[in-house]
């Protein structure tokens, strides 16, 4: 088995994290806040107690999956930014099976999870086919699919899946279809194990199988892939399908693996932007499935701990988001730089 290509990227990431924190500190100084106090609040908020750590991981769970969607795309030479829409459909699939289909315990949970993944993967198929057959650029098609998915999901949620008498959200997942909550004080559920397992499987697939090798080869050097007899269309389909499964699972985890709602809000408010956030997570994680997990934890920490910057250091919430954004931008620079170089050197 191939060793993780970690050391150097990890060091680079740590350096950029520090740069990002310094940049954020400068921004806070500019607005007369105390950065030491604020970062202390951030860190303690994210990792200060077991509950906080679990809450951070709850935020990280869907992100590691949507990051995987983008990462598998890049590894196969695609710029798949359709995780957002695929994730909505995954949430719809899970909502339908979990809320409206009474099934025996055990099977119900598995079926709801599978439905989410399947819906996500199916939503990834049209852009994949358009790309493979007609050369339609995936950025265009996935953005379009994202919007279609947004309105489709809203429509389905309001008209078919809504909880009777409560139009603002869908029928909650039946108890048989819920991932067990790990502790009463945090919203983390066992869904994280499924997410981690999926990331691991994809990692093993990419570096340990022939199909994964061919996918990475096509992304790395399409001409060499042709020379090696790799079929471009197959790679596109595979890469999209894996990405769709991951995004669908991300959506599902927010319905059947995230208290207290256990349902989809009609505004999609409890899932919105998780797919797009995954792009940043993937870039920080160097488009590597395992790197994505680590980066997702970091993003989870920023999301959960960021709230404490507001409580304890009085930093305005807008500024908290700006600081988080700054850190993310600095983190993404090395990978963005490499992506750009690869694109323009061709």
């Amino acid at each position, binding site marked *: *088995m*191939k*060793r993780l290509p970690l050391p150097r990227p990890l060091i680079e990431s740590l350096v950029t994290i520090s740069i990002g924190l310094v940049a954020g500190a400068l921004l806070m100084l500019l607005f007369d806040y105390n950065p030491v106090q604020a970062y202390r609040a951030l860190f303690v908020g994210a990792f200060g107690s077991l509950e906080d750590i679990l809450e951070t991981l709850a935020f990280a769970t869907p992100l590691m999956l949507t990051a995987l969607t983008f990462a598998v795309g890049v590894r196969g030479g695609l710029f798949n930014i359709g995780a957002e829409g695929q994730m909505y459909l995954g949430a719809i699939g899970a909502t339908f099976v979990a809320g409206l289909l009474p099934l025996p315990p055990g099977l119900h949970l598995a079926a709801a999870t599978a439905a989410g993944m399947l819906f996500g993967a199916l939503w990834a198929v049209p852009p994949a086919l358009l790309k493979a057959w007609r050369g339609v650029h995936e950025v265009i098609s996935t953005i379009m699919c994202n919007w279609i998915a947004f309105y489709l999901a809203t429509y389905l949620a309001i008209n078919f899946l809504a909880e009777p008498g409560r139009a603002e959200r869908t029928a909650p997942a039946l108890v048989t279809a819920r991932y067990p909550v790990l502790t009463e004080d945090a919203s983390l559920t066992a869904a994280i194990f499924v997410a981690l397992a999926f990331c691991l499987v994809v990692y093993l697939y990419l570096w*340990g*199988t*022939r*199909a994964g*090798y*061919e996918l*990475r*080869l096509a992304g*790395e*050097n399409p*001409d*060499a892939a*042709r*020379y*090696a*007899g790799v*079929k471009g269309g197959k790679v596109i389909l595979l890469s999209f399908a894996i990405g769709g499964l991951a995004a669908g699972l991300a959506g599902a985890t927010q319905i059947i693996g995230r208290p207290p709602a256990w349902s989809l809000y009609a505004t999609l408010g409890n899932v919105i932007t998780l797919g797009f956030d995954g792009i940043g997570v993937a870039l920080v994680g160097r488009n590597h499935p395992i790197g994505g997990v680590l980066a997702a934890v970091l993003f989870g920490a920023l999301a959960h701990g960021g709230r404490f910057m507001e409580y304890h250091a009085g930093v305005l919430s807008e500024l908290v988001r700006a600081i988080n954004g700054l850190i993310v931008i600095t983190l993404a620079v090395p990978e963005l730089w490499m992506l750009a170089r690869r694109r323009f050197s061709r």
Partner: protein
Amino acid sequence: MSPQPRVEMRGIHKVYPDGTVALRGVDFRLQQGEIVGLLGENGAGKTTLMKILSGLLRPTRGEIMVDGRLAHFRNPSDALRVGIGMVHQAFNLVPPYTALQNIVLGQEGAGPLASFRTDEPRRRVAALLTETGLEIPLDDPVESMPIGVQQRVEILKTLYRGTSVLILDEPTSALAPVEVHDLSQFLKRLRTGGKSVVFITHKLKEVLELSDRVVVLRNGQVTGEIATVQATPEGLAEMMVGRKVVARVSRAARPPGAPVLVVRDLRAANDQGASAVKGLSFEVRAGEVFGIAGVEGNGQSELVQALTGLRPPTGGEITLDGTRLLNLNPLELYRRGLGHIPEDKARFGLALNFDLAENSILSRQGERTFLGALGRLNWGRILAYARDLVERFKVLAPNVRTVVRSLSGGNQQRLLVGRELSKQPVVIVAVHPTRGLDIASTVYIRELLMQMRDDGKAVLLISADLDEVLELSDRIAVMYEGVFIGTAKTEEFTREEIGLMMGGITPKGSAYETPASAPAAD
């Protein structure tokens, strides 16, 4: 000695970051009002030298004097400031813009709307047109113009920036014969106007027609410099192809076997859809090296890609050991015994960001040996195989998990050649197999190819390096504009004859005429 030169380059060396040595101490001089033809084979360093003069590349060593003063160009704008401008082979035009907009682009003057408010640019361009005698429909979009006119736009764009030293990279490669004539008229007018011109070419006929003086480069060095009136095609051809002192690989006499690879009336188009391979027929026999010589861009790439499944042919037939091969993908071809050392190893043959082990199974990734259950890669076997390749083909690398990008060109090529030869092919198609390699690797790879031949394999060698073709081949064909301008046993050709044919002139002295009207695109 003549008066002070307009431009003088002294002792120019250029080593590319990947270690390729492109120029080894070149002196080059250009007088005012002079047209110099810069002649040489591919890879001789012509374009590198001119890119240095135009500020696009920096020399590793050496200096440039302009009007007797030392000049340091950090970028093309610095060179333009002293009047040196280059027109590249691939044009830099904005297709939907008009000719005028393209010419003026970037030179509109101050203010965001300066140019399109006044008629000043139009007047200046019109004056340039009168001065140079060029005709261009200024208000037509560039994309609607034929290549020859686009080239004029590109040239005018350079002149508009005040260029008095004009460098043209292969200006005739895309032109029809009539357009070549126009270009020659135009160059002469420029000369009358006191401007200096350097044009890069590998065509003997053109250099004789267009230039005042010829400078010949070979392998990064000047091998000849002669006033055009004193030059003969034979003399130039010899300077261009020369004789290299490399340890020669011996080729034992050996009766060739049965034809293995048979090609009949093969046709293929280039990326622009123009016909590039115009009905080639040949065969390669077991235990023989069939060499195709010729300057690059005469259809060799398209021929190779058609043979190896990377480009669908537009007609003709290919058989290997009697089985038809047309329209198979590279992997299926390889299973039938076709090995391929591609011309651009970084593009086709290797994935540079993959490590040696991963590259060692490129195109063999589907073989049982390297797979376990469920399509899993058997890394144990792959690593062992990679180590074996590294050892057998003397690849210098820290270990097989090293990223291939960090290897030298010679070691990358050893890995690639080793991989292809270890597939036990029946036919091997080797394209520029030693380009850019150091001498040790060059000799080693040539010996390997010879060994393949002696083992009874059929070897098709395509190379722009004439020495290589002469040294290894049993039979030689010279390719020019999509056809074989001559084919014979190696002993039946003299080097000079081949040199002439590479420049498009058949040995009888008559210039070779292209059969089809479509010009071969580079």
